[in-house]
């Protein structure tokens, strides 16, 4: 098992003929992912060579699903077209839609999220502005480097891409069941809580690492959820203790407003819920080693 993305997942790419779609499509294939097709309305009926494989291009998400059995879509289309692409995926009722694109206006994200809810949450949305999902040894959907870690028993959920990679690499000897990059935007589809719930239910996951950062109150709400619902050990890390108020730190969602959204408040909430929180990424990795030994 793994969460959300397994060896059976059939992955398609929206924007497969663009430079990002091609580059990462090839990487996903090299990592063993079943990349079954992709979309570009102007190139429907053609095929595209990715990593030595010939991958069919369709006009719509619905066509791709009908012909290939795709059940996961990875979205690489530029920010100006992302809303339409995600709404198309929702309307095609694909079970999982991973939005890699960054720089999407939040009005667009709020709208496609509302559509997903309106459609009965048939489509799980991950992102936007996220690195995707990696279930090492099984499947890789997005831009997480596949060769920095191994398959194992840690589940990871994170707002940040490179911090995720750092953690996966530091703990590569233990390995990961699934790593989910949920993205750093103010509005995202899948949350820390969704991943914590799935990891709690996943028999292959023995311990969970949760990486948060300043902005919003998602970590505080995750802490409350952990207290009530998660019996597996959770180790946390929060970035942004030195961030000044009112400045956006790279990620659109990483901003402290007033006294809310601070790293200190998040750390305290997590510790109150029994989560051990590392002061640095390395210290966090060391804590994971400790808990996995006794898990």
């Amino acid at each position: 098992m793994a969460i959300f993305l397994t060896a059976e997942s059939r992955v398609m790419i929206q924007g497969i003929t663009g430079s990002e779609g091609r580059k990462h499509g090839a990487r996903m294939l090299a990592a063993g992912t079943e990349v079954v097709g992709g979309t570009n309305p102007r190139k429907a009926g053609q095929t595209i060579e990715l990593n030595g494989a010939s991958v069919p291009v369709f006009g719509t998400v619905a066509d791709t699903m009908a012909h290939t059995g795709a059940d996961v879509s990875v979205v690489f289309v530029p920010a100006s077209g992302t809303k339409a692409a995600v709404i198309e995926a929702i309307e095609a009722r694909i079970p999982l839609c991973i939005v890699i694109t960054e720089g999407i206006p939040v009005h667009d994200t709020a709208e496609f999220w509302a559509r997903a809810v309106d459609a009965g949450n048939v489509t799980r949305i991950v992102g936007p502005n996220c690195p995707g999902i990696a279930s090492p040894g099984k499947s890789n959907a997005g831009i997480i480097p596949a060769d920095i870690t191994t398959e194992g028993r840690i589940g990871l959920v994170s707002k940040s891409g490179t911090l995720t990679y750092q953690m996966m690499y530091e703990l590569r000897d233990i390995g990961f069941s699934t790593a989910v990059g949920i993205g750093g935007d103010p509005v995202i589809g899948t949350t820390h809580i969704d991943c914590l719930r799935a990891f709690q239910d996943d028999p292959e996951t023995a311990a969970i690492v949760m990486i948060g950062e300043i902005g919003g109150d998602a970590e505080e709400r995750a802490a409350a959820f952990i207290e009530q619902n998660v019996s597996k050990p959770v180790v946390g890390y929060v970035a942004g203790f030195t961030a000044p108020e009112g400045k956006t730190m790279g990620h659109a969602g990483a901003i402290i407003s007033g006294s809310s959204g601070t790293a200190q408040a998040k750390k305290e909430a997590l510790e109150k819920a029994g989560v051990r929180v590392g002061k640095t990424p390395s210290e966090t990795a060391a804590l994971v080693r400790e808990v996995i030994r006794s898990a």
Partner: protein
Amino acid sequence: MDLFEYQAKELFAEYGVPVPKDKVADTAAEAREISAAFAAEGSPQVVVKAQVKTGGRGKAGGVKLADGPDETYERAERILGMDIKGHTVHKVLIAEATDIQAEYYLSFLLDRANRTFMSICSVEGGVEIEEVAHSNPEAIARIPVSPLTGVDYATAMEIIKAGRIPDEAAEQAAMLAERLWAMFTDEDATLVEVNPMVLTPDGRVLALDGKVTLDDNAAFRQDHERFADASSTDPIEARAKAKHLNYVKLDGQVGIIGNGAGLVMSTLDVVAYAGEQFGGIRPANFLDIGGGASAEVMANGLEIVLSDPSVKCVFVNVFGGITACDAVANGIVSALGMLADSGGQVDLPIVVRLDGNKAAEGRAILREANLAVVEQVDTMDGAARRAAELAAAKGA
């Protein structure tokens, strides 16, 4: 991007949200002229308002009534150049004085927690809404707004009624709310706030003060440039922006370059943490050069970070993911070469930590390049410590 009050009100006016007559001035002389023109039109009394992107202007003495052009000149002269919570006043807004019968509150904003929009409305306005939330929480109505259905007149009226705005003001307030929502969506705002929304004795409803935050991610489809403000932007941040670098100026001594927003934020923390042992050494900036980390981007990044005179040492913290460390190492070597060629010889210590894909190859490239200023440390915590130590030794 936060707007100044005068910019917010320009937008209000564009969308038909009623505002008092006003005009912005850069100098006291201009303020006098505006006041004279208003007096000629029958509004001798004006309010002189400091234009700064922070709250508490009134308490700081940045908002004053003035009777006629001469007093306006005096008031403006005193307010211009004033420091309000670290913000220097470069402009004043001259607005005709408005008689106030009652003050209300109205806003539309992004509701992150519920992944939707929200309206906040209250019969108690004129003070910060957080204060009302604290002192009289029942006086505040929070109404979720779906991005799919938006706000028409009927919804606007529900919001106004929920905020218990009295009947005499309700109709106009609802009209104002409907227009404010149009502005919120059309301008890609994440916050539009009218505080206070006032009822005048002659029965008009006006937006007396406004706060607007626009979504930077929407800059590709909006004309945000027209609100750009050179005077209150840090000059290094402005140059970084022109080079498409994600840079935020901070107040420490260790220049930071890294790849990925989360890793860079974490690097700042680790440096501050290590710096505690060296007399409070702190990070000097946030700079995310992105996943690619090409030589040119690295050179631009180094140039920007080193242009900050308080920087005593630079910490380059890169995790090789898709871009492997050998490419990053080559980038650093050619970046230093490019800077030396353009006369910007680097003489401050640069601590480099490379980890991840092809870390060994990357480290070897830097070793063999034998650059006098570069010192490699293999772990993030160790490198942060060394950078703090070197900055302290440089007399930071």
